[in-house]
């Protein structure tokens, strides 16, 4: 291979080809935006319902409806990808994607905890609204930036 080492511009072209191929896969075949919004909104409904629930009031229904809608939209998301010929990995393989998923898990757990704790213990009534909105935005961002759960090769 030593005699065939590419020059700088050739290496750059090769990396550009890698990025373009990944970009095409991630952009062209992404499920519709309304589905990603439904996933984010139903996910937020779970956080909001959890933060507002007291004993057995109506907000518990928001958790149930949110969970059902989230499960249904996730299933549709996976199915649409599969129909187009892409099977999504449930647990990412690249280290960067693993890190992002780990941060997201802790972040969502923190939002879920704060959503309820801040309202019940400190009387901050807007906490569930804020946490649900934050969860919705974070989930939507993840679905836009990492639609298949994996990251692209980046410029260094």
């Amino acid at each position, binding site marked *: *291979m030593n005699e*065939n080492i*590419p020059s700088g511009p050739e*290496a750059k072209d090769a990396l550009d080809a*890698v990025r373009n191929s990944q970009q095409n896969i991630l952009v062209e075949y992404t499920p519709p935006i309304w589905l990603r919004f439904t996933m984010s909104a139903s996910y937020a409904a779970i956080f909001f319902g959890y933060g507002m629930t007291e004993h057995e009031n109506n907000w518990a229904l928001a958790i149930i409806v949110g969970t059902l809608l989230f499960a249904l939209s996730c299933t549709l998301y996976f199915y649409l990808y599969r129909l*187009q010929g892409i099977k999504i990995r449930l647990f990412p393989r*690249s280290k960067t994607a693993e890190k992002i998923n780990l941060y997201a898990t802790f972040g969502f757990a923190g939002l879920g905890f704060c959503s309820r704790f801040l309202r019940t213990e400190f009387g901050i009534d807007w906490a569930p609204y804020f946490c649900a909105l934050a969860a919705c935005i974070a989930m939507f961002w993840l679905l836009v930036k990492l639609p298949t759960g994996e990251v692209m090769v980046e410029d260094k």
Partner: protein
Amino acid sequence: MPELDPVIHAPNRLRICAMLVTSAELDFKLIKTQLDVSDSVLSKQLKALEDIGYIETKKRNHNGRPRTWISLTDKGQSAFESHVSALQNIINTS
């Protein structure tokens, strides 16, 4: 120091690996469309990657039609990452 992988370095094989990294499995037809090559050309490229253990192919039926799914193995994933790092090193040192 990561080294260039001669098997992955071929343009079509590099693009195949790049696409496979983004998901668990990809359909043969999808890769063919993306590369804009014939069945035989793609099969030949896939065979080269499969022989060295970088990818796996599985045939499954979907609605009565056979579909070929291709996935990157752990060996293929690390070879691809190493190859990309080597390319980035070349760019940084040039």
